């Protein structure tokens, strides 16, 4: 039962990914990307990571996509953006197929192993995913967390400075 659901969601992910890369209008690409984000959130729930699914929807499908849609509508891209370019399609297809063949080759040949931790699915259900994330982040990863806050501050200042008419 679960595997049928998995294949259904995977099919929707691939189709909406094709929408992103093949649609002529940027708005349609953006809508396909939102669909992809939602399907990935479903995957995260199936992988026992509900907090990640929540912030996937809030940060990606909410914040980042609203920003992208704002810019698309603000720039009012007319016919200039719809020019069709055909050169380079063959080589790009070959390059991306090589990436795919690489992934399939290593997945077929290799085995995924590593040092196993102690966070089982049962523990996630009994303790709570958010609490586990918080515990790890605010003890082991406190320094990267602070650096990320400085990065976001710099990004805010940079965006304001870049988008202002005259500084």
């Amino acid at each position, binding site marked *: 039962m679960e595997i049928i659901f998995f294949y259904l969601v995977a099919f929707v992910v*691939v189709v909406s990914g094709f929408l992103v890369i093949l649609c002529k209008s940027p708005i349609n690409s953006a809508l396909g990307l939102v669909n992809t*984000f939602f399907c990935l959130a479903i995957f995260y729930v199936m992988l026992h990571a509900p907090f990640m699914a929540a912030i996937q929807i809030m940060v990606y499908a909410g914040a980042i996509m609203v920003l992208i849609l704002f810019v698309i509508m603000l720039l009012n891209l007319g016919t200039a953006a719809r020019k069709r370019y055909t050169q*380079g399609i063959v080589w790009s*297809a070959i*390059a991306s197929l090589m*990436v795919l063949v690489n*992934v399939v080759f290593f997945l077929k040949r290799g085995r995924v192993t*590593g040092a196993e931790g102690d966070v089982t699915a049962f523990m996630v259900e009994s303790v709570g995913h958010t609490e586990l994330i918080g515990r790890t982040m605010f003890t*082991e990863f406190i320094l990267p967390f602070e650096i990320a806050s400085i990065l976001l501050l710099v990004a805010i200042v940079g965006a304001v400075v*870049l988008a202002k008419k005259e500084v």
Partner: protein
Amino acid sequence: MITVYHYMGVAGILFAMGTYGVLTRRNAIVIFMCIELMLNSVNLTFISLSTHLQNMDGQIFVFFIMAVAAAEAAVGLALMITFYRNRESIDVDDMNMLKW
């Protein structure tokens, strides 16, 4: 039974599609969206491996990737607005002012 290989296969397909989009499209915003697609496929890999190995660190990585992607979105879109103001286009073929 869904294994970790299924998820990594989906992530590989998404990454390949993102590569194709980045290489073929000429609209800077669509290229940006394809990069987001590739970042998301990497996020899926991280979370599936994190669940498979029963370790929390991969999900913390995904958290930081999301923070960096948000910062990148803000700065990148501001750059596109500035470029559009100067050249009336966001076609990457027009971005040749630094070309010798």
